[in-house]
C-alpha cells in the first residue's frame, strides 16, 4: 500500500482545512464500503486519505418539519427511522448487515452505478444536500446534485455535511429488484412518494435507481399519474413512460434491454402498492 498519511480530523472545520490544504490529492472516505474495495484492489492508489468517522456528523435531528441527517449516519441507523418509513425501507434493502453498520448515507450519494438505493429513496423524498466548504454552507436540492456519470455539484473543497428530508404525511412505495432476495445489487430500484387528495395522487415523485448514471426522476411517469386516481390504465401508462425515460446500462447484473423492461414492471408494481397503501407517513 502506498498511502503516506491517513488523516482523522476531529471536527468539520478541521476536515475542511485539510481538504483546502491538500486539495484533489486527498481522497475522502466515510464508511469506506465503496472506497476501500477499490484501494484494496489497487484500482485506486491514493497517497493521502482522510477519514470522516470522527468529525461528528453521525447524528439525526428534527429541524422544524424536516429531518437533518448527518452525512456519517450509518445505513443501520436509517433502518429504524420511524419519521420517514420510505427511507427506513430503502436502508433495510441495502447491502448486508455488516455493510450497513459501516456504510453511510452521505457515501450512498456517491455510489457508482448501479447507484445508491437510499439515494433513490431520498430523491423521491425531495431531499436537500447540505454542502459545506470554505465559503460556508449551502443547501442544494438532491435533484440538482448529480451532474453526470460519477460527477456531482459538490466542489473539490466541499463536503456533504447533512441531508435534509421533509417529514410530511402521504404514501410511499419502495420496490427493489435484484437477482437474490437480500444483499443484492439492483437490477432496478423504484421509490415513490405522493400526497393523496381523496383518490387522486398529488405531488408525486417517481425515482428510478440503477436506471441511469445516477438516480433519476421519471418526468413522464409523474405526469401520467399526477392528479389522477391510480386505475390500472393510469398505472400502465406511467409504467410505459418510466421505461422510456430510463437511461439503462449493461453490467454483470443485467442488460440494458432487461433493465428497461424491468423499469416498467417495477414502476407498475410500486404504483399498485401505492394504490393499496394504508394512509401513513412517507
Amino acid at each position: 500500500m502506498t498511502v503516506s498519511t491517513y488523516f482523522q480530523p476531529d471536527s468539520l472545520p478541521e476536515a475542511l482545512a485539510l481538504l483546502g490544504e491538500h486539495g484533489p490529492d486527498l481522497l475522502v472516505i466515510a464508511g469506506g464500503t465503496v472506497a476501500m474495495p477499490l484501494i484494496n484492489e489497487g484500482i485506486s492508489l491514493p497517497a493521502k486519505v482522510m477519514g470522516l468517522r470522527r468529525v461528528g456528523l453521525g447524528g439525526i435531528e428534527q429541524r422544524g418539519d424536516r429531518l437533518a441527517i448527518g452525512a456519517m449516519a450509518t445505513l443501520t441507523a436509517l433502518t429504524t427511522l420511524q419519521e420517514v418509513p420510505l427511507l427506513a425501507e430503502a436502508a433495510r434493502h441495502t447491502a448486508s448487515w455488516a455493510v450497513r453498520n459501516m456504510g453511510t448515507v452521505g457515501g450512498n450519494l456517491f455510489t457508482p452505478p448501479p447507484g445508491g438505493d437510499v439515494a433513490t429513496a431520498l430523491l423521491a423524498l425531495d431531499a436537500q444536500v447540505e454542502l459545506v466548504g470554505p465559503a460556508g454552507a449551502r443547501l442544494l436540492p438532491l435533484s440538482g446534485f448529480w451532474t453526470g456519470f460519477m460527477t456531482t455539484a459538490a466542489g473539490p473543497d466541499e463536503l456533504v455535511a447533512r441531508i435534509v428530508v421533509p417529514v410530511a404525511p402521504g404514501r410511499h412505495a419502495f420496490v427493489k429488484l435484484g437477482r437474490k432476495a437480500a444483499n443484492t445489487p439492483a437490477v432496478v430500484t423504484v421509490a415513490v412518494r405522493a400526497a393523496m387528495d381523496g383518490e387522486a395522487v398529488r405531488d408525486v415523485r417517481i425515482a428510478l435507481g440503477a436506471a441511469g448514471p445516477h438516480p433519476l426522476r421519471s418526468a413522464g411517469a409523474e405526469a401520467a399519474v399526477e392528479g389522477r386516481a391510480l386505475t390500472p390504465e393510469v398505472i400502465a401508462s406511467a409504467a410505459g413512460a418510466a421505461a422510456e425515460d430510463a437511461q439503462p446500462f449493461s453490467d454483470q447484473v443485467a442488460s440494458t434491454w432487461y433493465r428497461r423492461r424491468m423499469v416498467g414492471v417495477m414502476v407498475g408494481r410500486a404504483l399498485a402498492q401505492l394504490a393499496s397503501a394504508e394512509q401513513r407517513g412517507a
Partner: protein
Amino acid sequence: MASVVVAFELGGRPVEVLVSPLATLQQVLRTQLGHTSVKDGCRQGGCGSCTVLLDGEPVLSCLLPVEDVAGRRVTTLEDLTPVDGLTTVQRAFLDANGFQCGYCTPGMELVTKALLERNPAPTRADIAEALSGNVCRCTGYVPIIAAVEAAAAAGSAAAVVASEGATR
C-alpha cells in the same frame, strides 16, 4: 510513509500495534496479532469471511482502517472460544454439519452470536437476512440455518434454566 501506533481493545485486553497508514484491521489481526480466524476471502466486502465484532456489531475488517478502531472494542472468534470446549454456537454448527472447509465459519458464527443477542428466537427469514453478507461455497446454507436455529433453541433453554435457578 510514517508508521503510527494504534491502541484498541481485543477480546477484552488492551493491544497496541505499529501500523502503516490505512492498514486494514484484517491485515493487522492476521499478520501482527495472530487472529487467523479472521479470513481473507475477497477484500471487497463481498464474502463476510473477515467479519469481526466492533463494539458488539458485525463489521468487515477488510474495509476498516485499523486507525478507525482506536479506543474501541474488537472481538474475533479466538476471543470467544473457551480454552477447552466450545460455545453454544460453535457446538450447534458442529452438530448440524454447519461447515465443511470451515473458511466461512468464523464470520458465520460471529454474525450468529450478534443476531441471537438481539433476537433470541429468529425466524428462518431473519437468519437468512442476517447471514446474507456471508458466503459459503460448501454447505449450501441449509445446515447453517439449521445450526443457527439449534443455537437459538439451546440458548433459550439455557436462559430458562438460568432464570429458574435465579427464582429458586
